[in-house]
């Protein structure tokens, strides 16, 4: 069958995958069609409840990149505190790392 990639341990066929996804979407649509038909959008009942405060302008509540994954970097702060300074932007540091890399590789190749 066209598209079947044998990986040596199994196979992968993107066309079959797409068929499965289309069938899943179809059944999702069927479920959705079985839902309530008298739903009304854009009325006071659908507005977010913010403890009685007015909803802010959309532009003011855009979640920007800096709001994301700060917890991840915070949790790994020990790792990042060591890793980021290595990327100092100083070219002499870069050359030093290059030379260290050469020496380490040579030692490994010779000794192991």
């Amino acid at each position, binding site marked *: 069958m*066209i*598209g*079947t*990639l*044998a*990986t*040596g*341990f*199994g196979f*992968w066929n*993107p*066309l079959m*995958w*797409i068929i499965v996804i289309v069938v899943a979407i179809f059944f999702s649509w069927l479920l959705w069609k079985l839902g309530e038909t008298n739903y009304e959008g854009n009325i006071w009942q659908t507005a977010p409840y913010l403890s009685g405060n007015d909803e802010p302008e*959309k*532009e003011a*509540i*855009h*979640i*920007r*990149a*800096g709001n*994301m*994954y700060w917890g*991840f*970097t915070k949790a*790994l702060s020990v*790792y*990042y505190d060591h*890793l*980021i300074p*290595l*990327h100092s*932007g100083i*070219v002499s*540091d*870069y*050359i030093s*790392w*290059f030379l*260290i*890399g*050469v020496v380490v*590789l*040579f030692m*490994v*190749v*010779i000794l*192991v």
Partner: protein
Amino acid sequence: MNAELFFTNLPALLIAMPLFGAFLTPIFGRFLPKIRDAWVILISFATSVVAQLLAAQVYINGYVMYVFGAAPGTSAIPIDSGGIPLRILFNIDAFGAFMLVSTAIVSFAVILHLTISQQKRSSLSEFYALYLLLVAGIFGMVSTGDMFNFFVFLEINSISASALIAYHRNGALAAEGALKYLIVNTVGGLMILFAIGLLYSQYNSLNMAIISQNISLTTLNLLTLVLFIAGLATKAGIVPFHLTTPDAYSVAPSGVTTLMIVASQAGLYGMFRILFSVYGGVFTSVIVGWIVIILGVLSMFIGVTMAIPQKDIKRLLSYHAISQTGYMLLGVGVALAVLGDVTLIDSFGNMAMKGGLFHIINHAMYKGLLFLTVGAVIYRTGVWDLNKMGGLGHKMKWTMIFFLIGALAIAGIPPFNGFASKLMIYESTFAFNPIIAIIAMVVSILTLASFMKVFHSVFMGPELLEYASVREVPRRMLASMAILAMFVIAFGFVPDLVVDMLITPVAESLFNQGQYIHSILGGGL
């Protein structure tokens, strides 16, 4: 033109055409500026066609050997040379042809992008000339069978890339990035030149096949190998030799960064060529394979974890480029580690090799696409900072769709091309060492997380007032993205055809060192 003459001299045209175009571009710019852009697009297209035709010849015949300065039919080894090829040789096997295909596609897409994105800048003639020189440098690196020629093309590659990085961004950042890239790559290039000198002093030849035939695993040759690996790892942006890569990629014009992806892959090509075609017959332990694997794991993990906290969108993509290079090293490294064991090669080494190689062309397509889409965003907004972006999907729908295709592909989401090559790498690496395969999968999850952040912060959310006047980019830029997106989708939908037709001959050519030697020493034109 005589068709036979044309097809016989394709390897010469591969280099002559971009060089000819590069030197004529400033003349067009001076006397006929209105048709200069059309000229550059035409010469880039013609060069890409030549590269594709040459690649087709190689895939049909197994290899193409071209002896410069000799009449057709002349042997690669002159009678009075003592069995040593003296002339400049291009020896293009399936691996070289594979790289030609990748470079040809990306370079043509890039020039469509650059001729719009850079049109309001000054000194464009020189800019395009440097672009064509960079293309010639990449083509030369992946075609030559001569160590010193390889070094010369590597230098053309590095110097033209440095000049292009510095060309078109206001302020000192671009010049600083270019200077760092030039200095570090010059040091890497010097190491490669030193390594070539060490081999030349022992074997009296610069020809890769001659050296490969005579090489032994002495301490001196191990030092030579390490110098090659370090120098080429610098070019390819492999941890811990990657430090200048994000500094340079992030400040270059986006089209240039896209071409630098394939330029860096030419460094990876050099590393694999040295490891398999030159040293492949003398490795007696798995240590070099493990070195490549460890460099791959370090690149994957450090690349992706450094990408996550970035706020400059191009710097973030640059770290992802480093991370993806790790996958290629992982696949090929596993194959290298089991090189002497036929059972393990058949069991999973062959698949690991194919996965790593498949990832090279996949990465060129989806990472090229991502850089072009980000270039389109910067072209319209003038903003690099992710924290200042948002809501652009309302105005730049096609760019958003192309970015989404690239993002899903790099994260290894089916049915795009990145999934197919990653699956091959995961499964084969799992058979070799499950822990490494798990690390590779974790890196893929982190990549997806990182691109969710980028996609949301650039394209999602409400329309922002500061981008009220933003509109979709011109059609030519969209066409450049569409070309790469088409390959991302096509390679994902028929991975079996790509692997059978493009990748398997490459894997066979790398495993079969004797075939490479025979292609030169067995005759040639």
